[in-house]
């Protein structure tokens, strides 16, 4: 048995890591896993850097930000798979929601709500009120990029016209209630829990922004993976099996039971259920776990777009350094999963199901569309 320590954050999208333990998939792959629940992302990063843990549930942009010198080092990290797609929601205070609606019907598209947001920002400026404050769980997070992209689509300059702060997800609801922040983006089930408690209303969720949005990945210390190549594949396989189990509709109740345990996410059953229905979270190993190089480049592109990073880096090399589609194929092929032929795909622009070349059979992918119609192609 290979000893292995894996850390996770209390979120629904840690499901594969939790399911693999609950159903004994680690054991059957020859891994003796100790799970560690962490309260913050900085700790996961630092513990990976110091070798106090071997693998973790991490925000997809984290290893790139760290490798590019944004914040403290994380050590060399590889990501053999994604841990699903979607799962985040944006919640705003009842007050802001009422302002956006202004008596009329709130436009349900993101472009529509972003224009209403811009109108509210302008009103506050005219009346000498402070900027709207939005919270994200980490500076280098998909949440931050989604909110900025949304605001910009309404004609706002997110850097100057909105104030951003970092707040732990478990405390975001209280800060909305207390009027400290006007809204936040967080992984499920925290926005759903906040809405159930009457602390605000969900404005949109990941699939409204991007129907198949990348979010968390499995981060493994490169040194550990190099010393334990077979265990790295075994770990990936255990999590892919967890994905097969978790995405089967018949296992839904059991999935919620696993997530709701105090030691896992520790949120109310109702909130978890609402989140699984509403946040578009998907664990299908065939369509939502491949570590697409195009995702890695999109994330780094966002860092450049928002002025966090200069464009003078070899993004292709860095993407391939961290994301390891080769390891995914090695783990997935013997399980009978179809393996994409290419490492990159066009992101966005697919309004319905579409086919990508794969072996032994092509994969039918779900729609892959960004709210603004944007299409991201790797040069």
């Amino acid at each position, binding site marked *: 048995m290979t000893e292995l320590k894996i850390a996770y954050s209390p979120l629904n999208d840690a499901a594969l890591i939790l399911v693999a333990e609950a159903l004994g998939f680690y054991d059957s792959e020859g891994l003796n896993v100790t799970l560690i629940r962490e309260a913050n992302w900085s700790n996961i990063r*630092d513990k990976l850097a*110091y070798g*106090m843990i071997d693998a973790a549930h991490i925000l997809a942009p984290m290893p790139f930000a760290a490798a590019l010198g944004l914040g403290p080092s994380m050590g060399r990290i590889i990501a053999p798979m994604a841990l699903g797609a979607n799962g985040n929601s944006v919640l705003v205070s009842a007050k802001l929601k009422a302002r956006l609606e202004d008596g009329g019907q709130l436009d349900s598209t993101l472009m529509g709500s972003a224009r209403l947001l811009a109108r509210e920002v302008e009103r506050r400026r005219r009346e000498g009120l402070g900027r709207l404050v939005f919270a994200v769980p980490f500076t280098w997070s998909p949440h931050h990029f989604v909110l900025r992209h949304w605001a910009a689509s309404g004609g706002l300059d997110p850097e100057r016209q909105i104030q951003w702060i*970092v707040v*732990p997800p478990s405390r975001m609801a209280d800060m909305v209630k207390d009027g400290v922040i006007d809204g936040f983006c967080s992984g499920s089930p925290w926005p759903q829990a906040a809405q159930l408690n009457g602390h605000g209303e969900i404005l949109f969720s990941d699939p409204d922004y991007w129907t198949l949005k990348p979010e968390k990945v499995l981060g493994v210390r490169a040194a550990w993976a190099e010393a334990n190549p077979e265990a790295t594949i075994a770990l990936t396989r255990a999590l892919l099996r967890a994905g097969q189990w978790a995405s089967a509709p018949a296992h839904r109740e059991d999935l919620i039971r696993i997530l709701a345990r105090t030691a896992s996410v520790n949120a109310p059953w109702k909130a978890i259920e609402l989140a699984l229905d509403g946040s578009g979270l998907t664990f299908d190993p065939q369509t939502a776990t491949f570590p697409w190089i195009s995702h890695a480049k999109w994330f780094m592109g966002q860092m450049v777009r928002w002025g966090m990073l200069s464009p003078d880096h070899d993004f292709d090399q860095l993407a391939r350094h961290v994301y390891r589609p080769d390891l995914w194929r090695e783990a997935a092929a013997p399980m009978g999963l179809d393996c994409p032929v290419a490492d990159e795909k066009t992101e966005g622009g697919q309004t319905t199901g579409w086919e990508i070349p794969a072996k032994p059979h092509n994969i039918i992918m779900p729609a892959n569309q960004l709210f603004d119609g944007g299409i991201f192609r790797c040069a």
Partner: protein
Amino acid sequence: MAKTVNVLIIDPDEARAEQVAEGVRADNGAQETVIRQERHFELRMLRDFDPDMVIIACESPDRDMLEALQVANEQVPRPVVMFVDRSDDNATAKALEAGVAGYIVDGFNPKRISSILTVAAQRFAVTQGLRKDLDKAKADLAARKTIDRAKGVLMASRNLSEDDAYKALRKHAMDTGRPIQAVAADILAVSDLLKPGDSQ
């Protein structure tokens, strides 16, 4: 020295926070130390309490918030000290390299806290100093390049020596009461306008 030192301790575990506070008091015997213990970090604490140092438990969810402030908000940089739950000198060294001012290893032992706090404070001062130097060096380099290019324009257009070109720049800066770098930038902007088009 009579200066008061404000130390903010964030730890959901109050008993442990008390131990840390004891260690800080023991260390700062000569200085007056004001210690505030909180279970959670709030932004207003920076403004109201104005801590000289923040000590935060590693497993506090608020760590991410404080770290984001460290990275983004240059106005309120404070040394931040954290706890790790395993003793490993190598890990501590790496943490210091990584830019964290200090990791308290085995933070439960009040005796060890004092020396680490001192190191953390010194380390923070050095890092801040280096960052300021670096920023200044970058700004100086950019200014030097602008001035050199403006000198080149003057030398070519008015047939001046390098020394005279510089003197002309300096004189204009003094006459107009503006930084020499700004004058140089103006010259470059105008010279672009006067260039014959070469893209035809």
